[in-house]
């Protein structure tokens, strides 16, 4: 729950809402960008995701470092399980 998962924004929702598709280590899921309203990311930006919501923008290097940290903490599998779980397995 308290995992911060780095993801890259690859597509914005077609309905103009605040949802976007992110890619996390090859897995694509929709997350909510509503908490970044005051500093909206653009396509290709990296964000840190908590429970399906992007909470902050980060650099690509920080995203790589964060993935490494999750791996070293033994939490990367848990993080991927969380990401796969977003959207109730429905795209």
């Amino acid at each position, binding site marked *: *729950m*308290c995992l911060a998962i780095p993801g890259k924004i690859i597509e914005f929702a077609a309905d103009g809402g605040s949802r976007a598709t992110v890619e996390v280590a090859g897995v694509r899921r929709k997350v*909510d960008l*509503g*908490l970044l309203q005051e500093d909206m990311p653009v396509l290709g930006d990296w964000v840190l995701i908590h429970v*399906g*919501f992007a*909470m902050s923008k980060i650099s690509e290097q*920080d995203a790589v470092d964060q993935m490494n940290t999750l791996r070293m*903490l033994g939490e990367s599998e848990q993080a991927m399980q969380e990401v796969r779980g977003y959207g109730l397995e429905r795209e």
Partner: protein
Amino acid sequence: MKFVDEFRDAAVINKTAEEIRRLADPSRHYRFMEVCGGHTHAIYRFGLKDILPDNVELIHGPGCPVCVLPMGRIDDGLSLAKDPNVIFTAFGDMMRVPGTQGSPLEHKARGMDVRIVYSPSDALKLAQLNPDRHVMFFAIGFETTAPSTALTVLRARAEGVRNFSVFCNHVTIIPAIRAILDSPDMRLDAFIGPGHVSTVIGCRPYEWIAKDERKPIVVSGFEPLDILQAIVMILHQMRAGEAKVENQYKRVVPWEGNRAALKAMGEVFQLRPYFEWRGLGFISQSALRVRDTFDEWDTEQRFRVPGVRVADPKAAQCGEVLKGVLKPAQCKLFGKECTPEHPLGALMVSSEGSCAAYFNYEHRKAALTSLSWPA
């Protein structure tokens, strides 16, 4: 040591550890509390304790949302799951946390509709997919997860979803730190501030710790080097006789926090007059409830919640461990009646709980060492 050796910055880490040894006055003992459970996990996992000098002691704080939730709230939430019309949803971390009648997972095994969600928005989606049933989301977490719950409630209202409600157990970090500082059996020199909570609240809310309590606090990231650097920054302050709020985790934490997240929280939640924390007792204005204007999405308004209060098992010393008064292994039940496989207290369930972290890394390591001793 093992995990640090594997770390890509082993040389830098060793250099930073050397700096800590240089800065720490050998004639005194330092007690720094890492507030966040994520830090506690990292500290054990990376074996940071082994590379710190003996007189720099890290005390584990209350920043594990699952751990601080009193058992009565779990019972309260699960009591509603007995209604066949209700779908009980919660994060995976909650599923093995014991209530008096068992954990959510055990309730599921008894046939109740208990489901894991990874995001509050998925609980909302579940409600939309099941219009004939009521989906309650058992919300837990500090300010890291509270904004997501808030935004989900705003979406539920905007989309007119009325078969969805939040059983709100969100807590706030500042009153917990205050309660610890007010505790007479606690002596701390400084704090390692939480990383992700600060992404939301920023660094300003900590200023009273520096100004009024004269204790340094450094917000830190979660890599081993981050935590060691935060300790260096604390020691520099102490040597200079200063007490300031500093931000080691600037690459993620803005000084002012996340305004959109704070706004969503402010719109949907209000402070409860008081809330019970496991181990810390009742702390005033330390938790959030759904505002009256959002009654329709507040489980506690829509259902009759029993309001159960359950004392922790007498022998378990979760409270003392949560406050940092006892180390996990000093609890009488640690590693005996209470293990990650059969947790009696929540600190043994979550990877962020200090008991689980201690058990998984220190205790197992010690057991392995003693096993291999004769060879």
